[in-house]
């Protein structure tokens, strides 16, 4: 393929390197000085920004299951060129989730205790740990053909490619379970989470919003790959635009269903009156600005075939997912506490999140520059 060796000193590498170095120091301090050094967590609010981003990373990592399901189960083969970058982005998302979880756990080195020492199956977190563990492994196996092609291990590649459909089904079921169970974490705090966000159906809200976040991430990953690695990407600008327009239809439907479920929730629990409070305005900002608006924009962009508008809308949707998860984890959590006792993230908590995102982007770049992610390996052309 491209024989040009990627240069080491680039503006991106320098900035990313500095962030990773600084973030690494803070993470080291967190482990030597304790959680109180790097976070503002309190006895009243024990889950903060990091938990918020755990939810964000997993929701956006849905790019993997949404696209593999579309391509391998529903036979939308035209999207095949986007499968590998999407699964890779998802895999990196889960990696970030695991990292931030390890930073947040009081005793991270006991991470295997729920499986090997004393399982607590009545916990939603137990199900999440189990499903994420299995799904992470599945995604890794789904990606192994890239590595085998890179290393020229033809026989191994064939074995793992053969399991594609099985792994896709397994991955989708695991995703349905843990994406919704992340919402179920909040079922147990009906008095702490604001009623506009609390719902007995919050697991469903989390699963549906992960689907629309996942599709939006596919659109964005496609765009960024084309912009940054244009020479590596096999499909033409026109083909990518066509796929983007097609994806917008799926995203619009997912957003519409999510919006409908939100309306149902307001109605059956009789929560409309909360809308006329300051928190209600904030809720409307989230649901109208980052759910209904992108839904309409996706639909319009699909009808009028406007890939640029669709890409902007995908970004809006992703920001909406971040807003939703951070709202639930931090902003409207413990809404009843007096202002002085409310949790505000420590600046180091932000630095650690920024470090992880930078690391994720750098890892994506590193892999795409070397391995056949955006193009077919010449030896295996037209073999899928």
């Amino acid at each position, binding site marked *: 393929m491209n024989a040009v060796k990627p240069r080491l000193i680039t503006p991106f590498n320098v900035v990313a390197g500095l962030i990773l170095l600084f973030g690494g120091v803070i993470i080291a301090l967190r482990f030597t000085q304790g959680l109180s050094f790097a976070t503002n967590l309190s*006895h009243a609010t024990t889950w903060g920004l990091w938990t918020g981003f755990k939810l964000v990373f997993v929701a956006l990592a849905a790019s993997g299951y949404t696209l593999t399901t579309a391509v391998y189960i529903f036979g939308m083969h035209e999207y095949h060129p986007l499968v590998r970058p999407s699964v890779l982005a998802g895999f990196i998302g889960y990696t970030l989730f695991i990292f931030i979880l390890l930073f947040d756990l009081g005793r991270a080195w006991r991470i295997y205790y729920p499986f090997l020492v004393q*399982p607590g199956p009545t*916990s939603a977190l137990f199900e999440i740990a189990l499903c994420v563990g299995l799904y992470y492994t599945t995604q890794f196996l789904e990606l192994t053909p890239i590595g085998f092609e890179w290393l020229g291990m033809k026989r191994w590649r064939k074995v793992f490619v053969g399991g594609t459909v099985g792994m896709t089904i397994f991955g989708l079921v695991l995703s349905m379970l843990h994406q919704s169970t992340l919402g179920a974490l909040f079922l147990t705090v009906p008095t702490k989470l604001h009623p506009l966000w609390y719902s007995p159906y919050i697991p469903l809200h989390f699963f549906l919003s992960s689907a629309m976040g996942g599709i939006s991430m596919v659109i964005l990953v496609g765009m960024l790959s084309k912009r940054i690695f244009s020479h590596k990407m096999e499909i033409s600008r026109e083909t990518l635009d066509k796929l983007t327009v097609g994806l917008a239809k799926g995203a619009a439907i997912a957003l519409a269903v999510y919006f409908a479920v939100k309306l149902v929730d307001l109605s059956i629990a009789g929560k409309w009156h909360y809308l006329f409070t300051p928190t209600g305005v904030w809720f409307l900002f989230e649901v109208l600005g980052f759910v209904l608006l992108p839904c309409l924009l996706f639909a319009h962009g699909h009808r009028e075939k406007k890939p640029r508008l669709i890409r902007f809308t995908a970004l809006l949707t992703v920001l909406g997912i971040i807003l939703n998860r951070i709202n639930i984890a931090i902003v409207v959590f413990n809404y009843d506490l007096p202002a002085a006792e409310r949790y505000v993230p420590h600046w180091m908590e932000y630095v650690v999140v920024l470090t992880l995102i930078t690391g994720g982007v750098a890892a994506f770049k590193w892999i795409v520059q070397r391995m056949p992610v955006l193009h077919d390996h010449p030896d295996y052309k037209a073999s899928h």
Partner: protein
Amino acid sequence: MSFSRRGFLTGIAAGTVAASSARAAGGKHFTGYEGRYGLLHDSTLCVGCRSCELACTKVNDMPAPATPIGDTKIFDQKRGVTDKLYTVVNRYREAKDKQPAVYRKHQCMHCNEPCCASVCFVKAFVKTPEGPVLYDPEVCVGCRYCVFACPYYALAYEYDDPLTPKVVRCTMCYPRIKEGKNPACADACPTGAIQFGRRKDLIKLAQTRMRKYPGRYVDHLFGEHEYGGTSWLTLTGVPAAEVNLPQDVSHDPLPNLTTSFLSLAPLVTAIFPGLLVGFYAFTKRNEALKKKEMAALVAKERAQAEAHLEETLAAKALQAQRNEDHAVADAVREALRLAQKSAAADSAKEEAK
């Protein structure tokens, strides 16, 4: 810690799992361990001396409260439990016009069906038959789901400890109960605001007081039914919300909210793989049908094209034959004409001679 792993398992099994399986069996209801202990805090008798705080730190080998007992300035703020204090007394209303001040002691409520136990993914919590909910730091991973889930903000965490951080909370003086002693706070209370005994008896005691002195108490014993009931019962002269207790909450145990959802997981795992294989088969079938249709269409088109080609070829051949015939005829005619012409010329030459 003095309790065994076996105790953990039986405790959880009886406390949460058995309760839900009993519901599943229908008609049966687990009301909790018979004869378990509890504590009654009659907040109308509490004078805010904080003797309980001091006694609590003493029996648990912790440093005495930072603000000395007797310093009433501490009541200017509302405090929560911390990793240095299992229990705190707060003042919710100052004394005014012969109305006494309102205090309340806060600590872990030792729920009948503890949410902390049900959300723990390593089963670090156990509801003992005696009543206290105990925590085992030996298996704790530090996810703090228990601290997050507790509706009473009664759990604290050692954020300062990088290596062995633990969840910190009132143990209801379980070791002292096992020795036949009262919890330290109950012994330390000079006004009798804290009473230790069998939970059933304490409920009766509280009800008697409420009946005898209706003006003194609101008609509600906090902890009797809240989220399935707690071991700590609180009598108040003001509504629960005023002393920072959740008011008008469900009587259904909190763990039920999660378990009813989690029970769907086995169903999803059972149904969806088959359903998805079905979708996949459907897609494949559609693709195969389409391929077949396409092949048939191609064959038909090809046959038609071939037929058309043959016809055209035949017509062309005919045309060519005709053209050839015409050409031959023309050539013959031309040759004849030329021959006639030359013959005529020859005869003219001869005549001239």
